[in-house]
């Protein structure tokens, strides 16, 4: 994974700003309807990888079809407990299977609704089931180095991020899909 092979250009046809608008619209909807929580979007960012400092949870789904990539929600374990508690009307003091499952479902709804909102631009895509990673100091990046459009949100005094990476399948060199590599410290 040498940095020289990284493509810093946004994918043609899907401007990061528009991706960010769709992320905001669908994240606000899911949090309002299913969690009864208000989230405040912060300025979008373009990132090369997904990184988790401290106790972080990364929940992600893959896209497949004419475009490939992934979408994810990244937050602290404390915020994941608050989100899960709001959705399931329970209290969680630490991360357990219910919290991981709830965060996976929140991600499924956010990224699933994003996928449908983005369909006029990228066509109908298939979505994988969620994968949830819980750990310290990890980094996830695409093998092909495509960028992530990231939108941070303020929620309950903390910040979580929703990120999407989408690339036309035919642009991926040598048929290599932008599969994620997750590494530790």
């Amino acid at each position, binding site marked *: 994974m040498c940095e020289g092979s990284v493509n810093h250009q946004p994918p043609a046809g899907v401007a990061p700003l528009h991706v960010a608008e769709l992320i905001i619209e669908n994240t606000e909807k899911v949090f309002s309807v*299913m969690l009864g929580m208000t989230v405040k979007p912060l300025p979008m960012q373009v990132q090369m990888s997904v990184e988790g400092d401290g106790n972080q949870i990364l929940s992600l789904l893959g896209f497949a079809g004419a475009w490939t990539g992934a979408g994810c929600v990244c937050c602290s374990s404390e915020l994941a407990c608050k989100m899960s508690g709001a959705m399931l009307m329970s209290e969680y003091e630490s991360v357990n299977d*219910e919290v991981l*499952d709830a965060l996976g479902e929140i991600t*499924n709804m956010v990224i699933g*609704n994003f996928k*449908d909102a983005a369909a006029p631009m990228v066509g109908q895509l298939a979505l994988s089931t969620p994968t949830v990673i819980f750990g310290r100091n990890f980094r996830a990046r695409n093998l092909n180095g495509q960028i992530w459009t990231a939108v941070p949100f303020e929620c309950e005094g903390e910040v979580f991020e929703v990120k999407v990476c989408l690339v036309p399948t035919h642009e991926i060199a040598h048929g290599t899909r932008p599969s994620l590599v997750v590494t530790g410290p």
Partner: protein
Amino acid sequence: MRLNVLVVDDSAAIRKILVRVLAQTDLPIGQIYEAGDGMEALKKLESNSVGLVLADINMPNMDGLQLLNRLQASAQWKDVPVIMITTEGNPAKVLEAVQLGARGYVRKPFTVEQIKEKISTCVKAQ
């Protein structure tokens, strides 16, 4: 007569929410069974009497559309009403679900009222 309901979703969180919603309806809900995918749902149907199925579409092993297909092909289960509760908004998938006999389609995220209304309409139509 009480209505036994089968909730099929690979997310335990969504199953928990739907079980809570069912308990809040004015309908005479009896037993509530849970399954994590279509295969598990078929096993629950084989061993229990079920009058309503709430099913997700995107699930591992056997998805919700495959489950609908199996129910429609069965003389025993083809009349059991199925409501799809799913994130999937692809119009082709929605149409396929309707053609396979789904009695309702609710998109996630959903409100409690949406689920109650859809179940109530479905049960009253029986």
